């Protein structure tokens, strides 16, 4: 839909329908005396209803870019709109609340809380939103059931397999029905078959008409499952298409 009638990026505006829109995003890091520029003026639109991959070699800036797009890392320059909100013009607390309402996170290391059970872990965003604890738990169990681990709801994280823990982490990212889901290297630690299963699962639960899903990966075994692949090289987008470019 977007970009068909008018390439808005060319004139610097944002398509109102874009889930995420970055304009001129640059990020520097200080390394001792030097300043290294990791991202060089990224202009990007991410659409809802698609599984978008962010692909690139180690150190190309994928994690930096996705962190900026989901409101946890300030860009040095440029602006980021998420569903029309210029997130870095929000106040600190407003930005935190924006994330709580609109963004689901799947961390590579899951970061589950070890002393509360799977359902409670999955319910964390709802509890943080102030939803009643019993209701939050019910909704979390329902989400675990969708992920086929409803029968593990009462177990502590260390009583679950790695794959099951990841599903709990996915449930936590989706339980509050955020409009944007971000995911860093979801398959890096999995074998090929499990990796594809997780991607199928994510497509099933995380992709919807009104929801955008971005996945950072350099796992070439799952490239064929993407709707759109963005390639990042040395802090610049060098490819944008359904398939990987030749030579990668």
């Amino acid at each position, binding site marked *: 839909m977007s970009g068909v009638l008018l390439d808005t990026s060319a004139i610097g505006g944002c398509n109102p329908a874009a889930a995420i829109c970055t304009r001129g995003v640059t990020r520097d890091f200080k390394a001792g005396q030097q300043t290294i520029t990791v991202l060089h003026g990224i202009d990007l639109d991410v659409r809802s209803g698609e599984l978008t991959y962010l692909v690139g070699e180690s150190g190309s800036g994928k994690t930096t870019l*996705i962190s900026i797009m989901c409101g*946890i890392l300030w860009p040095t320059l440029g602006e980021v709109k998420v569903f029309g909100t210029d997130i870095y013009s929000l106040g*600190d607390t407003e930005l935190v*609340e924006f994330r709580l309402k609109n963004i689901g996170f799947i961390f*590579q290391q899951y*970061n589950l*809380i070890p002393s509360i059970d799977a359902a409670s872990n999955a319910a964390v*965003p709802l509890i*943080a939103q102030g939803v009643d*604890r019993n209701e939050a738990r019910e909704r979390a169990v329902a989400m675990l059931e969708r992920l086929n681990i409803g029968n593990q709801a009462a177990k502590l994280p260390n009583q679950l397999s790695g794959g099951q823990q990841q599903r709990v982490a996915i449930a936590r990212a989706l339980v509050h029905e955020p409009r944007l889901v971000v995911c860093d290297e979801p398959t890096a630690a999995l074998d090929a078959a499990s990796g594809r299963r997780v991607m199928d699962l994510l497509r099933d639960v995380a992709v919807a008409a009104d929801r955008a899903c971005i996945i950072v990966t350099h796992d070439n075994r799952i490239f064929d499952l993407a709707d759109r692949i963005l390639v990042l090289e040395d802090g610049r987008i060098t490819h944008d298409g359904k398939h990987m470019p030749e030579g990668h």
Partner: protein
Amino acid sequence: MIWIAIRMLTGDGQKFYGLVFGIAFSTLLITQQLTIFVNLIERGASSVYNVPTADVWVMDEVSRTTDVNYPMASTALDRVRSVPGVEWAVPHLRAGASVRSGDGDLEGVSIVGVDDATLIGLPLRMVTGSADVLSQPDSVIIDDVGVARLFEDGRSPIEERLELNDQRAVIRAVADAIPSFTSQVTLYTKYSQALRYVPGTRNRLSFVLVGASPGVTAGELATRIEAATGLRARTRDQFARDGVDFIIQNTGIPLNFGITVALGFIVGVAIVGLTFSLFIRDNIKQFGALKAIGVTNAKIGRMVAAQAGLVGLIGYGLGVVGTVLFIWSFSANPTFKGFYIPWQIPLISLVAVALILALTGWLALRNVLRTEPASVFR
């Protein structure tokens, strides 16, 4: 979120118990040491409290406490009696002596000579026997600490003979008295008898104990007596305070107890601070995840405060209960007789605990607040 914070903490048994132990230990040390300190220095006033009927104590100008006194001429009694507002005034003698017990051991004792007619100057309650025994010849009444000191084997002291400065004394009753600071044996006897036990200079009247007439306050009366006689007059409360001050000024006790209390505080800060930072460090990824997901710093602060509060409540409770058990288990020991926990002391240790937790919690929290949410993707 508070619920999650509590579960995070209690789920890590080792650190949770470490924190509770740290607080309990500090509380115990601070509460117990302060309790002993206060009770010990209050012993400086025990001789005053043992004579609750006296409103005013009159003494030579240079006398300072019940034990540090300079005798007056016996005419002082009549001079005091003639001051308006004095309802009654009786002589009171306090002196040291050596006693040879049945086993031949030598022991320093305090001799207290009380008014022959009224027996004012005796403790009000007796453990064994009654005050009347003093009418029998050579009678003395021993205090209960004295019994424990002189008759360690648990023998009954009644009818035991003592040699007091070469004079015969027979114990005929045991008084229920607050022990003195040094837990010295005290022997009560009639004033006239005491004069025989204390070999003598001409002046042997240590104090004149005074009761105020109705409508006259002790303070007013003391001022009047001083003006009329030139002697020193102290109300009961003032004189009790003098005894306490004397110990504070003349012993290293406040400093020593102060050091222990400070150590309790420092050890608490060390144990709790270290354990708290370890706990936070172990959970920093989880806290980072919470921050990324959308928990504000204010809420994180409340989570850490709840964790500190829980640890504080349990640890403090255990520490105070520990102190109570300690005092209670030693209550049979005469050295600890009458020990109590003044209400201010648990309050002081509560403040100390709050300070420890505020300090260590703030240090731990700083690490969490400094964690960038972006670190969760690394």
